[in-house]
């Protein structure tokens, strides 16, 4: 198993303790395309943050690619994030004063890859996502869909073990949302990339092969979705 969670608990303590994750057991295999669905406050984002080593958990075990992710120093965590995880965010999280290609290069910069090589690789990835002509544009000169594709290129450039997407279509219109989900499907199908998407939109979840329903901090149901028939609005649209 690529990802293995055993009885993971997480409590936020902002004045009043809030038990967000109440014992999560979950395993995700290599090459899976999974969505985590739930209402807001269900704990799905917290779960994703723990999977992405952006946040720590209180009790339980989290194994990522055979390594126990626990009590890491910030530097170790940064290194794991850099090498094993690619992030796609709802708000893109591109750095505004950097061009598209510079944004894509950034993870390689932190790996110490030489300028020339990382620039070349970044251009390659942008080309694959159809953004070659936009390489030297700044984020505020691009549309939402283009920005998200830049972010996807940035997530992929380090060849991570998993890609974590937090509401990747949350800020996009329905047409672009479909395009982005198709792109992720293609990545999973053609390159065997393990992708975990957090969403509250059934259309987005329907694009994935497995839907994990989370409710009040526990996993409610795990639904196989090979036929992509989970959405009431059909298989090829995302209802906004």
């Amino acid at each position, binding site marked *: 198993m690529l990802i293995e969670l055993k009885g993971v608990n997480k409590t936020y303590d902002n004045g009043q303790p809030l038990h967000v994750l109440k014992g999560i057991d979950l395993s995700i295999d290599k090459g899976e395309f999974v969505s985590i669905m739930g209402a807001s406050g269900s704990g799905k984002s917290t779960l994703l*943050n723990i999977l*992405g080593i*952006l*946040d720590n958990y209180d009790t339980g075990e989290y194994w990522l690619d055979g390594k126990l992710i626990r009590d890491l120093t*910030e*530097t170790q965590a*940064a*290194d794991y*994030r*850099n*090498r094993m995880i690619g*992030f796609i*965010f709802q708000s893109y*999280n*591109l*750095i*505004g*004063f*950097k061009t598209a290609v*510079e944004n894509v290069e*950034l*993870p390689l*910069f*932190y*790996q110490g890859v030489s*300028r020339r090589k990382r620039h070349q690789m970044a251009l390659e990835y942008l080309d694959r996502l159809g953004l070659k002509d936009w390489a030297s544009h700044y984020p505020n000169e691009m549309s939402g869909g283009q920005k998200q594709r830049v972010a996807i290129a*940035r997530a992929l450039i*380090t060849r991570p073990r998993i890609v974590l997407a937090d509401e990747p279509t949350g800020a996009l219109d329905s047409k672009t949302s479909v395009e982005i989900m198709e792109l992720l499907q293609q990545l999973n199908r053609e390159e065997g990339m393990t992708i975990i998407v957090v969403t509250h939109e059934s259309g987005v979840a329907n694009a994935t092969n497995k839907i994990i329903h989370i409710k009040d901090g526990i996993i409610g149901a795990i639904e196989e979705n090979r036929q992509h028939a989970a959405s009431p609005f059909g298989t090829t649209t995302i209802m906004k």
Partner: protein
Amino acid sequence: MRDLFQEIFSSLQQNKLRTALTGFAVAWGIFMLIALLGAGNGVLNALMSNSGTMDHSMVVYSQYTSKAWGGYEKNRRIRLDRKDVEYLEGDMFAENVDQVCPVVRQTDSLVYGDRYLSVQLMGLMPVFREIQNVELLSGRFVNELDVKERRKVIVLGRTDAEQLLGAGVDPVRLVGQNVKVGPFSWQVVGIYKSDESMGGGMPQLYAPYSTVSLIYGKDNEIPQIYFSFKGLETEQESDRFEASYRGVVNGHHGAAPDDENTLYFWNRLSSSQQMDKAIRIIRTALWILGIFTLLSGIVGVSNIMLITVKERTHEFGIRKAIGASPASLLKLIITESVLITAFFGYVGMVLGLLANHIMDKTMGDVPIDAGIIQITMFVNPTVGVDVAVKATLLLIVAGTLAGLIPAWKAAKVKPIEALRAE
């Protein structure tokens, strides 16, 4: 390294206003510091040059007794004589006294052609020149033969000679000419460099002691004794010396041994000691002001650093999410702040040195006429480049240290919290 600089350059370009503000705080701090220290140094140098050359001469003036003693009433005039000079020259004070010169003064008028001056004729010995460091511009000083033969020769101050000759005439031309002082004709044998900054009212003419004493019927009285001394470094030492000489003189003239009013000592050393004290106070004040100026610069830098770090929290969150280690963020922030402070510190330093240069050119060495005295307000109002560089380095180091805390906090904050920040 090039990557780091490129990172910093693009973030600075992005935040032009912030960069400009930080730069201004730094440049202004250094500029003010250097301008202030320069002006202060100008005042100090002027004070020191106005106080004249540090010489080791003292003048003894005879005064009145303040106590009745040995059958005499008090308020009796003490008349110093040859014997009192010999005491000073003798073995008794050989340890402290170098050269001794009796001086007699007489006020009279000096006439040359249709011009005249009220002057003070000083009858003195050739050794006076060494005691007072008289600088001759032309001709010669009073010599032994003048004294022995009671010649009517005088040495004139340069400004006085200029006044006699009128503007634009070289005062040296007066050497060898005859001028009238009182009823007699005197020959000008030399011109000395008069010390403007000392002020001092009436022009002083130097003439042989014997001549002045004879012409004005001074009867070999010695109202003043000039002498050069050695070894009297502290106030206590000179007090002790003065007391013991006074004791000898009092004994010779039948005054009470402990009568302190018989002699008055004018001592350039003690007045220069007071000057030293004033200079020390000004210097301390300057340093305190300077340190506070620097401090305000440092506060400016760390303040902007704080804002910078706060503003960029979200960006740092993104960087952390994609793999930036705390150390690499810390390096980024600190290098950026060092670069900014170094660059603008350098600009401020250059401007400050330039301001000093302008002060030097416009106000330096320009005497201000304060009536009877001419005072130079600024002499060489500059700061050494080493001091300027040190101050700039200090600001960079201190600014960085001050920025380290917010930078450290930013590097430590959890990525999830940083990403949430807007």
